[in-house]
């Protein structure tokens, strides 16, 4: 494609104003009560249900679906919250197609699983619409103080469970707003109507959690002080750094980190004021790559390409997410790795990619290259833990915090969970489970 305009074509307001609202509306609107009844009736109430086994937080899925079916959506929501206090967000963002719905016996039998995610949302949305606060009472105060660092899914789940047990929690977050990736990272169309913030309020409504925003480990907070002042510490700090391509001109205009752009997008009051390139190339193959690609397309980019160095089957983005990208007009180019950025006058104008191949299990370049013109090149090749923030006190593995089955770190009074720990799945629901397990372990340790 040849561009006549000189310089990078990056502009806001590419679409009529009303198109933004439509493009960024709810990906899966809430089921109507009758739809929920009919869908719930499809559940076979399996014995030792495979879906429940597949859920990282072990939600009793047949039970909550049955409760929808019996006309008890409030009880249904409690069944969900018992295991996952962020059940509302997980209903929106879980890759159910690779978790509960993948193993649903109806998926196996007929390729049409019960819409577990949608039903979970039906129950949790019902509860949150009908109730001012979350459903749990705090136990009698234990007098113990716990620092939870990071108010993302892991930290929120941990703080909530600790508060339930009667501990006093201080919840620190680096940003001005709690929620972590739920607030700043999830694609817009998966969490409309300010849901992430409403859910934070819901979780905190249990009481006993003191939220301190604008406090960042490594800046105005350090681990040694926390350990000295609190009975226990939980780290749910996520991954603050972003992997770089390692190419020249990465500092040029138009060369961007996907996570930063998504965070801005999520906080934007007027999407029409957000500049977006006419031609966009995204490097990566995970959920973030799909999220940035689809959202730039929805912001009005003409031509969006995801370039991934291996085959489509190796992409971390689920098949569903890949289809979502493709049905939104995003091209997925596989077997292509970045070779060089093309820049002029301080801005990138394109990217040179090298074709790759799988040679006996190892990825090699073929020497053949292709250059894509681009006004914006997004990096979505993973995030990293900024270990200097931890003061070197914790054992790491492959750049992440090592934890045991209880999510305890190498330090006796420090637990960790979510994306910052080794061996995790980088999923909201997995982070919630980490927070929950750690909270139970902390409670047990402090009660001993």
């Amino acid at each position, binding site marked *: 494609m040849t561009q006549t305009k000189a310089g990078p074509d990056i502009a806001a307001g590419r679409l009529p104003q009303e198109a933004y609202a439509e493009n960024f509306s709810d990906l899966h609107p809430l089921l109507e009560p009758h739809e929920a009844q*009919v869908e719930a009736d499809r559940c*076979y109430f399996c*014995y030792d249900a*495979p879906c429940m086994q597949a859920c990282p937080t072990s939600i009793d899925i047949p039970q909550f679906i049955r409760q929808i079916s019996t006309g008890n959506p409030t009880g249904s929501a409690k069944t969900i919250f018992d295991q996952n206090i962020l059940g509302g967000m997980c209903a929106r963002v879980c890759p159910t197609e690779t978790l509960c719905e993948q193993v649903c*016996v109806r998926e196996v039998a007929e390729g049409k699983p019960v819409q577990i995610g949608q039903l979970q949302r039906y129950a949790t949305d019902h509860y949150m619409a009908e109730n001012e606060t979350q459903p749990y009472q705090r136990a009698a105060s234990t007098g113990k103080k716990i620092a939870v660092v990071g108010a993302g899914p892991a930290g929120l789940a941990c703080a909530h469970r600790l508060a339930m047990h009667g501990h006093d929690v201080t919840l620190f977050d680096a940003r001005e707003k709690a929620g972590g990736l739920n607030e700043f990272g999830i694609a817009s169309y998966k969490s409309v109507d300010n849901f992430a913030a409403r859910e934070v309020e819901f979780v905190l409504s249990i009481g006993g959690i003191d939220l301190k925003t604008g406090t960042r480990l490594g800046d105005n907070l350090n681990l040694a002080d926390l350990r000295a002042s609190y009975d226990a510490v939980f780290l749910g700090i996520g991954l603050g750094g972003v992997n770089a391509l390692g190419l020249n001109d990465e500092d040029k205009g138009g060369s961007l980190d996907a996570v930063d752009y998504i965070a801005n997008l999520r906080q934007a009051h007027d999407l029409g004021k957000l500049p977006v390139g006419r031609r966009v190339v995204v490097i990566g193959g995970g959920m973030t790559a799909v999220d940035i690609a689809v959202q730039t397309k929805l912001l009005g980019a003409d031509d969006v390409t995801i370039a991934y160095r291996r085959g489509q089957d190796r992409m971390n983005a689920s098949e569903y997410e890949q289809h979502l990208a493709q049905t939104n007009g995003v091209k997925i180019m596989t077997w292509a790795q970045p070779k060089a950025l093309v820049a002029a006058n301080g801005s990138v104008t394109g990217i040179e990619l090298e074709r790759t191949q799988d040679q006996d299990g190892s990825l090699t370049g073929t020497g053949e290259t292709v250059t894509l013109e681009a006004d914006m090149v997004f990096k979505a090749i993973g995030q990293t833990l900024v270990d200097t923030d931890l003061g070197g006190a914790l054992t790491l593995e492959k750049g992440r915090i090592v934890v045991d089955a209880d999510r305890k770190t190498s330090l006796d009074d420090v637990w960790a969970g979510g994306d910052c720990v080794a061996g995790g799945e980088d999923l909201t629901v997995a982070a919630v489970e980490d927070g929950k397990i750690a909270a139970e372990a902390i409670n047990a340790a402090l009660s001993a």
Partner: protein
Amino acid sequence: MADLTTYFFGIKSPNPFWLASAPPTDKEYNVVRAFKAGWGGVVWKTLGDGDPVVNVNGPRYGAIHGKDRQLLGLNNIELITDRPLEVNLREIKQVKRDWPDRALVVSLMVPCEEQNWIDILKAVEDTEADGVELNFGCPHGMSERGMGSAVGQVPEYIEMVTRWVKKHSRMPCIVKLTPNITDIRKPAQAAKAGGADAVSLINTINSIVSVDLDAMSPAPMVDGKGAHGGYCGPAVKPIALNMVAEIARDPETHGLPISGIGGVTTWRDAAEFMALGAGSVQVCTAAMTYGFKVVEDMIEGLSDWMDEKGYTSVDQVVGRAVPNASDWQHLNLNYIAKAKIDQDLCIQCGRCHIACEDTSHQAITNMVDGARKFEVIDEECVGCNLCVNVCPVENCITMEQMAPGTVDPRTNKVVEEKYANWTTHPNNPMAVPEAAE
């Protein structure tokens, strides 16, 4: 193509599908629409005498629904026709004149005084309708006035009124029976004794479909209160089938023509009623749910099925299953079956396991060699069929007969070829030496 022409003790109709006496047959307008749609006959909504009855003006129906609002059972508190007798009679006469090939039977309900019956029969005869059906079944409203099921629950009254009808009229007479009775054979015998040409059953079942838990009143609710109504629709079919079979099997009433009623929704339902002895079927709820068009597939489906089975006329179907409708004591105790799960069809929901484990015989595994697998344990299986019924996959679990000569691993006894039933079983204190099939 099979001939569906039905000769129900002389009342001829082009097919065995009649509309039951109910709101769909209350007016010429509806009945003409029904005939245009293809219904073989109608039983006109029950006529009474004196001033027309008055219906409630609030809800008259309540229902049981499936999750997708499938109407599974319907209950009503509507009474007999509330239109003037003369209007009904005029319309009946007109319809019969315009549709001579269709069966037109008139349902009647008047007080148990001979003169009342004489008068109404005379009026109906003038319409040239094909016959009358005596409504001894209506369980609400009319029964409180000594009519409907109040008559149907007393065999002596049935016989008395039936006798009057046969005495004072040349018209064929069908007696419609109430299921709200302990032994359906008694009223049928009474009807026969009174000279009835046929019986029809079942009328609706006493019911409260639901309770409004906010208003704390049964539904349907009329100004804060509810009354029991009559239950019908798919949910009542099993009850109706049994009662039809009881009458068909009873030596005293065997051969008495039966018009089968109760949840007939499809051609298959109709075929089942016919197999158990019904010479015609009457339909109401299916029509009230979907409209008159449902008769098209009833006709077509029955005809196709008959062709497939080689039946050329409805007589060949009627009563065909009656010889096999037996009593428990005559079932073969030497017949031994075991459930078998087709592992290729099994979707591993585990419902068979938990049903058997919690509520029955602990005869289905949930784990085999450490893997999720559902297999029947023949040593425990009594062949009860519960797993078959709870399995969501049709034909995934089947009951397989054990061949005579093999050993039942549950009892360690050889499966005997010889038929043997409870009447000869050693545990039966009243056992006789030799079983009769």
